[in-house]
């Protein structure tokens, strides 16, 4: 039963072998768990374009076919815009399938995660979150 409930997520987590996360000292790493990061694919449904963090929502099917609405946090709009992600990018993604690299909330909040990257419908991958996993430290 447990596997039925969490199977897909657990399997995905188990398959992904990332570098040992570098300790980070920013808010994202405090709020989200660098050891619980995964790729989630779903339909982009809506977003909140606001500071200090943007948010967006995906409808993600779990292994049982149940659709859950997920909430993802991004960096500030200032950082998004200066790093090449516009409100138009989010607007254009509505109703389409995207894949988010995301790290789950430490507080156990259901279906809530920090987004590190998003693969947009056009295939472009945007960095939209902080470096929870320490993957980007080399550049």
């Amino acid at each position, binding site marked *: 039963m447990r596997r039925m409930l969490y*199977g897909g997520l657990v399997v995905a987590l188990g398959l992904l072998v990332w570098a040992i996360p570098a300790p980070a000292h920013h808010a994202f790493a405090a709020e989200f768990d660098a050891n619980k990061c995964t*790729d989630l694919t779903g339909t982009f449904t809506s977003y909140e374009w*606001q500071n200090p963090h943007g948010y967006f929502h995906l409808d993600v099917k779990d292994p049982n076919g149940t659709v859950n609405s997920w909430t993802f*946090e991004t960096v500030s709009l*200032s950082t998004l815009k200066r790093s090449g992600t516009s409100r138009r990018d989010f607007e254009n993604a509505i109703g389409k399938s995207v*894949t988010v690299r995301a790290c789950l909330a430490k507080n156990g909040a259901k279906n809530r995660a920090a987004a590190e990257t998003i*693969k947009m419908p056009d295939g*472009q*991958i945007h960095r939209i979150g902080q470096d929870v996993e320490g993957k*980007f430290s080399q550049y």
Partner: protein
Amino acid sequence: MKTGFGRYLATGIVAVGILCLASGLAAQEGNSQPAQPAKSKQQPLPPGGPAPRTADGHPDLSGVWFGGTAGGFTYNPALRRQFDAKAEQPPQFQPWAAAKIKSMTQTDYELGRASVNCLPRGVPGMFLINPYPFQIIQTPGLFAQLDELNNNFRVVHTDGRAHNPDPDPSFDGDEVAHWEGDTLVIDTISIDERTWNNFTGWFHSDQEHVVERVSRPSMNYLNVVVTIEDPKVLAKPWTSTPHVWTLGHEDLLEYYCTNNQEVEQYKALKEKESGGGDKK
């Protein structure tokens, strides 16, 4: 189940690349490891010639300034050195203050942060813990700093006048300034005790006295050295290393902090850490 497994398997083996703005790297699919980002080709800004001067002969500090040496936004850590704690001596606290800070958890730090609470960084946080650019507009006798962060601003007289004898506490405090050679010295007292001087619990007392030394060694560079005296909290005065900002060529963006959902999230995390139940 197999369908779900397959979907997550497929998702899991898709490498997550990084869109590096400068290089425009595209995603690499079909790998089990994330695509390696390109080494940044960004270089520190050159000095750019001598600093400009205002009509009264002082260096003109005016400009839009980004933290670090990139002259703009960058993810490159080598170009964002303004928060490099390794190069800076840590503050030495009075024993009671050290104990108080030591008792805080990471979640406490977050709950106390100005950014989480949408509070102003104040002085000297707008220099020490501000990752966003600011604009300086200087005229003879006046220094105005416009922070992108929270759309905060401060206006300081640079004519060497004395402090208000009975100032109200405020986030930016009671600020006066004068020139020492080519360095603008901003002297601040009466700072609201809600501000912190770093991201990890460095609180202060009503006795905090901050001196910010701002200079423009060349066209493209702004240096800020901060000294903090706080006899109630610090065992001895603390002086920062020079925090480097570089000249950008773009306008500030609007950044009003609104509806930060992190507050509720951290409160829930605090409750969980305190054994108050696992929120599912």
